């Protein structure tokens, strides 16, 4: 077939990129080879726009065993235990086909984790939808939630935490980010680097079908009104096969049969084989006649670019084939030797006894284009409007409006569709600042949380990037865990637009500064560009997934009020920052002005001392103060218990709205016994931490002197009714 301009463009390759391909090959590629290049050189697989920025992120601390560049990141949690985790986006497929898009997002991230030898122990997700009034939103929401649940529930991994947000910026481009966390033995971690010549390359798992062909290229382009036509590029998931594949792989991993292993994710057989060969500085020869196919007459092009799910590529030690095959037979899965490693450093594909492609591995990987795209800085918005400038509103009606809004209403209707308890190690389910998962059969546990704040990032990307790392760190602290490392999913618009590239570059800078200061490195992640439709880009939405360690699991600290009569303290200084707050957005529909500034020094100091207070059993319950401010924090601590609060009128800030709705960072709300106050106060004062007594825990009512009084039951109803009327 003649390679025309049209064919090149259809493969998402730019003209100068095609020129580069010809230079690298010293000839024109054939159609199959062009397809392989397009799969490897697209944004999703090559990180060509993001690489130079990602390189600046801190990736190491004393716990990190493996940083970015593998299937997932690996951290040491003491003894022979390691935690392996990663987050990944499945935004475009989920918009086209919400159930399958979300389900296969979960499937893909699970494979990234068990490929490395870990048994997955927790799933998390961050999902963003358009305005609730947008007519697509409800269908997308229901589809995505049941897709996430459908997959995780069936494989039998608890879905323990997440966030669901709504904003018109996602009307035509939703975000579905899934995170998986697994536990492995430190001396049994598997990598994707091929080693040795003439080793068997084995295909295991599902058969290859015609689904998902060019999925990665689709994910690297903007949407337009014809996006619906892309449905055939969405993969179809089968969690049952995933479960079998997981058990078979983990069984095979018990001995020393595997040299390297890689899941077939984006760009399927192409990227998995290239990646393994590239890392091992080897070549690979595959006989495509051997590839198990689901459909008849599949061409090499289709086999190499299919994104059929639940498949793996394994390079085996000599003589282990029979034993390995037995395991896959037991689980009724395909197991076929489809090729071998070579010293040619080329990817050679054979089909019907002919060489159908012969490409240097380096051309596909290390020689892929890298761009230093132009970017524009975004200045901190100076407009700092005050609450006084708005029309007067009653305090209680503002409060009710916020907690009954889609973004702040209770998400039980989502989390009840996820099995949170299977595996019987979920110590803290979703609904707290972080969830806690015990390491099976041990005393230690990990805390996990996932967070984003697109509103802040849009307003000022640097501040937003910094803030969201801090918030995630704080969420782990709030359950008594020592934060260790993060994974990030960077959802942005079109990187060819300097404004968008600026949002990316500066969010990275913000993330970097917080990660460095908090010793909280990035060990894995994913970049998703081109989130937008018809030149309308989404808000910059970096999503942070954090993992922390609880060395000695006792009764975990609670996130809801525990005892009538105990004191409620706010920790950290409140400056009354209201621009970009829930109050301004949800009540006044005002979105100008700067986001709150995260002061890293205070963040760390406050967090470290909170951890000390938790460890010394000074705290009955705790919740961080973030979006929505102190009043939302107090409401959430009440709603999940039958206890309310009697809040005193504050003296420090004159304006009630500034006091209760401000979103200043680095703050917590804690409940302590009265008799412990002197001790707590001493620790806080010694460490220069500002605190205030807010009120006391009381029965039945949520109350602020003369401004607000509501029973806990009614508060619960207001907080829960949105979805049931949706």
């Amino acid at each position, binding site marked *: 077939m003649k390679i025309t301009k049209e064919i090149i463009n259809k493969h998402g390759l730019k003209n100068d990129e095609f020129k580069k391909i010809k230079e690298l090959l010293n000839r024109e590629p054939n159609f199959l080879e062009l397809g392989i290049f397009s799969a490897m050189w697209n944004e999703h697989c090559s990180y060509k726009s993001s690489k130079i920025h990602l390189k600046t992120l801190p990736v190491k601390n004393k716990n990190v065993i493996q940083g970015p560049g593998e299937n997932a990141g690996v951290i040491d949690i003491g003894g022979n235990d390691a935690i392996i985790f990663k987050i990944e986006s499945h935004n475009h497929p989920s918009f086209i086909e919400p159930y399958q898009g979300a389900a296969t997002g979960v499937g893909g991230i699970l494979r990234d984790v068990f490929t490395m030898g870990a048994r997955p122990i927790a799933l998390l997700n961050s999902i963003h939808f358009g305005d609730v009034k947008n007519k697509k939103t409800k269908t997308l929401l229901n589809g995505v939630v049941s897709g996430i649940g*459908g997959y995780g*529930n*069936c494989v039998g991994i608890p879905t323990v935490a997440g966030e669901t947000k709504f904003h018109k910026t996602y009307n035509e481009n939703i975000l579905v980010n899934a995170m998986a966390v697994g536990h492995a033995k430190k001396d049994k971690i598997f990598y994707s680097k091929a080693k040795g010549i003439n080793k068997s390359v084995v295909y295991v798992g599902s058969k290859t079908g015609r689904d998902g062909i060019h999925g990665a290229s689709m994910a690297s382009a903007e949407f337009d009104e014809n996006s619906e036509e892309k449905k055939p590029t969405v993969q179809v998931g089968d969690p*049952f096969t995933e479960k079998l594949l997981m058990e078979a792989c983990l069984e095979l991993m018990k001995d020393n049969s595997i040299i390297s292993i890689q899941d077939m994710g984006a760009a399927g057989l192409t990227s998995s084989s290239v990646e393994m060969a590239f890392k091992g500085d080897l070549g690979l020869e595959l006989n495509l006649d051997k590839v198990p196919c689901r459909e008849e007459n599949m061409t090499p092009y289709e086999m190499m670019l299919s994104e059929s799910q639940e498949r793996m590529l394994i390079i085996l030690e000599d003589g282990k084939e029979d034993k390995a095959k037995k395991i896959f037979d037991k689980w009724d899965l395909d197991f076929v030797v489809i090729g071998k490693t070579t010293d040619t450093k080329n990817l050679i594909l054979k089909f019907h006894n002919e060489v159908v492609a012969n490409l240097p591995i380096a051309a596909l990987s290390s020689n892929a284009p890298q761009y230093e795209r132009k970017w524009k800085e975004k200045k901190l918005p100076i407009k700092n409007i005050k609450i006084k400038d708005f029309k007067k509103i009653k305090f209680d009606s503002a409060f009710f409006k916020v907690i009954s809004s889609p973004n702040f209403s209770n998400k039980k209707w989502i*989390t009840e569709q996820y099995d949170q308890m299977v595996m*019987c190690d979920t110590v803290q389910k979703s609904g707290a600042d972080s969830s806690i998962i015990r390491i099976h059969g041990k005393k230690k546990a990990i805390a996990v949380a996932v967070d984003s704040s697109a509103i802040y990032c849009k307003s000022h990307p640097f501040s937003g990037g910094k803030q969201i790392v801090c918030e995630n760190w704080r969420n782990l602290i709030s359950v008594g865990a020592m934060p260790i490392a993060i994974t990030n999913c960077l959802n942005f618009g079109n990187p060819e637009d300097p404004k968008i590239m600026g949002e990316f570059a500066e969010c990275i800078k913000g993330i970097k500064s917080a990660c460095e200061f908090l010793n909280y490195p990035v060990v894995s992640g994913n970049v998703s560009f081109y989130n937008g439709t018809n030149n309308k880009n989404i808000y910059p939405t970096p999503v942070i997934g954090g993992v922390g360690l609880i060395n000695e*699991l006792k009764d975990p600290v609670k996130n809801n009020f525990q005892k009538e009569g105990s004191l409620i303290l706010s920790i950290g200084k409140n400056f009354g920052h209201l621009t970009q707050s829930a109050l301004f957005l949800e009540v006044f529909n005002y979105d100008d002005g700067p986001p709150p500034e995260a002061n890293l020094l205070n963040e760390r100091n406050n967090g470290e001392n909170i951890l000390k207070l938790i460890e010394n059993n000074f705290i009955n319950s705790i919740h961080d103060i973030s979006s929505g401010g102190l009043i939302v924090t107090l409401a959430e601590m009440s709603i999940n218990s039958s206890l309310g609060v009697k809040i005193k009128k504050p003296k420090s800030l004159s304006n009630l709205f500034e006091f209760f709705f401000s979103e200043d960072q680095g703050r917590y709300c804690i409940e302590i016994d009265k008799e412990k106050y002197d001790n707590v106060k001493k620790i806080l004062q010694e460490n220069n931490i500002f605190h205030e007594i807010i009120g006391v825990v009381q029965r039945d009512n949520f109350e602020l002197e003369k401004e607000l009084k509501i029973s806990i039951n009614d508060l619960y109803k207001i907080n829960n009714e949105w979805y049931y009327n949706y």
Partner: protein
Amino acid sequence: MNSSVIVFPGSNCDRDIAVALEKSKFKNKMVWHKENELPKSDLIVIPGGFSYGDYLRSGAIAAKSNILKEVVKASKKGCLILGVCNGFQILIETGLLKGALLRNQNLRFLSKDVYLKVLNNENKFCNKYKSNELIKLNIAHNEGNYFTDQKHLESLEEKNLIAFKYCDKKGDILNDSNPNGSLNNIAGIFNEEKNILGMMPHPERMIEDILTNQDGMKLFNSLFN
């Protein structure tokens, strides 16, 4: 006492059940579905999960497996059989228990803690519970909506073959406390001989205070004596 947990491709509560059985001192063995023989067992447990991916109908394919023939034989000899969640669905599909488990009334997967009333404690499964004891267990299923014909339903009630019913936190059995639409709020039933119990809630998830409570442990402790 010896117990066996049957493992199908797609079972995912097998380990959890094994932990609970070992905690209550059973000597437990895991039995792969392709086996033609059961180890010596006083109790056989069919765990929760998605056996065969719930293809065709939950539990339908598992009911035709090699090992299930042995389970049916053992049940006729009086061996104790517990089916939890997908295990309950499988017991229904084999005909060891009567009725059907339909999709949840709201057509969604449902995972939450629920209150249950123990209606019959004069049997091998529930003898450590008090009569009418209020307990809290976790459910996680898509098809837990128990249905049967009127005559069978009446006989279940009359013969006291209903083990658990969904109720509210005061113990009242109401429509509002029915999570999935089950007839008469049924959460678990016995066969006539009361050597087989099928239940949708997961007792193995409630065996530790640090996770939840120990309301499920009493079931395993009842079985072991």
